[in-house]
């Protein structure tokens, strides 16, 4: 076998016996499929990530000779989508003598109300799909969807894998590979993976393959600023890729919401803010921003398709596309020049203050005060005819003075 193969692939369980941990749950699921008959309830696996729910579904299908059809329920959420995907599958499942096992992953991602009948459609499909074994997986035991699904399913709960069992499995993998690590490193690997077998195997492979000792100093925790500076000062593309990949940052998905800290740790954002603050000619900046824009589109697509393993190529793509133009730059955390961001901050603070004062008096929301009332207030108080976008700091000061004459001038400036 290829020595470069990832251990998680090489040691992927091919039978229920090869899995580790949650023995009772495995046995229960095994008995369920071994004794499955027309009209039996679907199986609902509930447990935290990394405990082997998906692996179990795949191994069960392979052991009993079923063709596994896998669907992520949190992606296909609406009634129409679920009906159009699942109905034909179930109705035609046994036409050609194919034995089909349907696996619905992340069913807790569905929502009864927001997903326009997704839950009711799923319940109706499960009711009609009694001839096809259906396995569902959920991370959480709480919520409206799981409550409803539990009523119609056989529930099997999976929990974290105890560290001693992980130690046993790690010892087996190292023996198969003919490698050895110190007992201290083995304990650190087991503790550091938090019950996730994949994570443990990846760390162990890095440890024995690259000679990186222990879990903690794996070299992937360079502060974002140092990593970006390292990237800009690298002598070769390979060095630049290495600097990016060792950073504490990541490529996060804006659609899940940004807070300040996540935004700071976003590698693409760190590169963007460093580039827009640098002094360079327009063409060079256009080339750099164009490359980042392409990478941004790619990251968004990877996140939308949930193909997160593709994120490993982003460092290389970015490094190769901006390496020549980005020599000599340095890290900058802020994506706007200080004078502009300071002005935006000051104006925003004053707008919020005025909206906060007016909202209870006018029985309106703060948002509506800012969006609809502010232009007229500026006009009345300042005597100027302006739109919301043209409100200046002086206007805001005038309003603040008019509303609360005791306050000093220049507030928030």
């Amino acid at each position, binding site marked *: 076998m290829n020595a470069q193969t990832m251990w998680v692939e090489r040691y992927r369980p091919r039978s229920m016996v090869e899995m580790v941990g949650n023995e009772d749950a495995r046995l229960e699921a*095994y008995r369920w499929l071994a004794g499955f008959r027309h009209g039996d309830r679907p199986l609902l696996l509930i447990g935290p990530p990394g405990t082997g729910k998906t692996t179990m579904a795949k191994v069960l299908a392979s052991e009993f000779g079923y063709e596994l059809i896998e669907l992520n329920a949190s992606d296909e959420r609406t009634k129409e989508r679920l009906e159009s995907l699942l109905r034909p599958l179930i109705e035609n499942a046994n036409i050609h003598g194919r034995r089909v096992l349907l696996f619905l992953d992340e069913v807790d991602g569905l929502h009864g109300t927001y997903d326009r009948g997704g839950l009711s459609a799923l319940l109706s499909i499960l009711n009609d799909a009694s001839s096809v074994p259906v396995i569902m997986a959920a991370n959480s035991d709480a919520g409206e969807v799981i409550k409803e699904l539990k009523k119609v399913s056989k529930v099997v709960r999976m929990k*974290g894998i105890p560290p*001693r*069992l992980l130690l046993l499995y790690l010892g087996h993998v190292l023996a198969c590979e003919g490698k050895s690590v110190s007992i201290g490193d083995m304990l650190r690997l*087991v*503790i550091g993976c938090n019950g996730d077998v994949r994570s443990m195997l990846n760390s162990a492979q890095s440890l024995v393959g690259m000679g990186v000792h222990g879990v903690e100093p794996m070299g992937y925790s360079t502060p974002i600023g140092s990593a970006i500076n390292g990237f800009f000062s690298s002598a070769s593309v390979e060095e630049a890729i290495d600097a990016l990949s060792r950073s504490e940052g990541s490529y996060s998905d804006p659609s899940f919401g940004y807070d300040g800290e996540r935004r700071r740790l976003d590698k693409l954002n760190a590169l963007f803010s460093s580039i827009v603050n640098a002094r360079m000619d327009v063409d060079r900046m256009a080339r750099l921003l164009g490359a980042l824009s392409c990478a941004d589109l790619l990251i968004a697509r990877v996140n939308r398709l949930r193909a997160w393993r593709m994120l490993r190529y982003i460092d290389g793509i970015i490094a190769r596309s901006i390496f020549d133009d980005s020599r000599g730059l340095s890290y900058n955390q802020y994506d706007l020049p200080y004078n502009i961001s300071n002005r935006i901050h000051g104006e925003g603070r004053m707008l919020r203050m005025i909206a906060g004062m007016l909202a209870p008096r006018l029985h309106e929301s703060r948002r509506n005060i800012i969006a609809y009332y502010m232009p007229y207030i500026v006009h009345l108080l300042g005597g100027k005819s302006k739109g919301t976008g043209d409100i200046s700091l002086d206007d805001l000061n005038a309003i603040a003075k008019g509303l609360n004459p005791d306050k000093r001038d220049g507030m928030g400036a």
Partner: protein
Amino acid sequence: MIRLFLHRDFTLPMLGKDVFARLMRAGVEYDKASRSFRIKDGADMASILAILREAVREEVSIELQCIVCGDDAGCAGCEFSSNCDRVYMASKCICKQCLEKGYENYTWYLSSLFDAARSDQGRVRGGARKRSV
């Protein structure tokens, strides 16, 4: 210290009606005949521990079972005891003696379990067919 066994019955001191009712709601069963308690599958372990700690005012710990030999896994003397949050762990672990016997011993035991499950199911299905005939 009170030890809670996930795999077998255990006894508790008299804790009063209120604590008893809260424990039952959290997923503990009481067997009147043997006067012992048992933790149900899917019980809220975090709540059970909190209720007991509050009631007895001493340390309460969970004891896992060894998957291979069926004895206690020896959680108190385990090298991972401070890093293993047993509230969120599966109820079966492995004791030190079985750990030393190696992975083959573990998989051999599991193979026998799955073989037994397969033959049990075969018997059940055969019996069901016979009855329907």
